[in-house]
């Protein structure tokens, strides 16, 4: 259970964040949308503010718990570049990622988001199964 509780509370905080952005600014907390618009120079102030906050989040964790959140990366750099390109291109083409489709899309009971979530969960499982299969 001690592995599940931080995940549940962390998830609820992500939900609180999405609720805040929706009810205060009327915006969807979809990170690929926010970062994508930031990269295009659209709505610079608020998108920059959210991205800045996102960077401060791990710092808040450090202040509360006295250590950085764990980040373990076993993927080699050539595959990481491929992964980054796919994540960036795919999330913009599919109009959302784990936050926009996953959190808010499901909360809005959007059929588009349900299809997106089923698709990216399946593709993610296939990718991991393939990597495990070839020993990476």
């Amino acid at each position, binding site marked *: 259970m001690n592995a599940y509780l931080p995940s*549940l*509370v*962390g*998830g*609820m*905080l992500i*939900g609180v*964040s999405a*609720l805040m952005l*929706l009810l205060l*600014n009327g915006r*969807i907390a979809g990170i*690929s949308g926010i*970062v994508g618009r930031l990269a295009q120079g659209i709505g610079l102030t*608020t*998108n920059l503010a*959210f991205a800045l906050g*996102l*960077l401060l*989040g*791990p*710092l808040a*964790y450090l202040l509360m718990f006295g250590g*950085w*959140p*764990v*980040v*373990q*990366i*076993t*993927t080699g750099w050539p595959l*990481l*570049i491929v*992964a*980054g390109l*796919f*994540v*960036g*291109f*795919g*999330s*913009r*083409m*599919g109009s959302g*990622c784990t*936050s926009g489709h996953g*959190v808010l899309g499901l*909360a809005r009971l959007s059929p*588009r988001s349900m299809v*997106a979530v089923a*698709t*990216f*969960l399946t*593709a993610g*499982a*296939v*990718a*991991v199964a393939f*990597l*495990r299969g070839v020993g990476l």
Partner: protein
Amino acid sequence: MNRNINQFVAALASGVVFGLGLSLSGMLNPVRVQGFLDVFGDWDPSLAFVLGGAVVVAFIGVQVMKRMQHPAFDDSFHVPTSRRIDAPLVVGSALFGLGWGIGGFCPGPAVASLSVGLPQTFLFVIAMLVGMTLYDRVWSRRT
């Protein structure tokens, strides 16, 4: 207070809570994410609680939104209205999912983890920005 300042502070605060939630939940750790996606192997189901917890709270937000005329700091809600299930949605989500499984990062954790300072995360985020730019400025504007 000026509306722009309100929107700025609201977005900043929302970002901090999001980043803290990602840090607490285990989503910042690609090994955990890949363990969650490893359904045919040594499956770690804990990250399902992240999505579950987030959706339940966000669902409350959506219900409150339906009873509000407009958000606190804007004249209208900016919520997607499309209901079309088309090829870009499915192909894009599939590409995103493959990248998510290969790297263990989705966009939120990728950006937040930059604070932890590992060089690989900078590499990933640069590649992600290139991928986003390729779609937004090249692919989607083909004639």
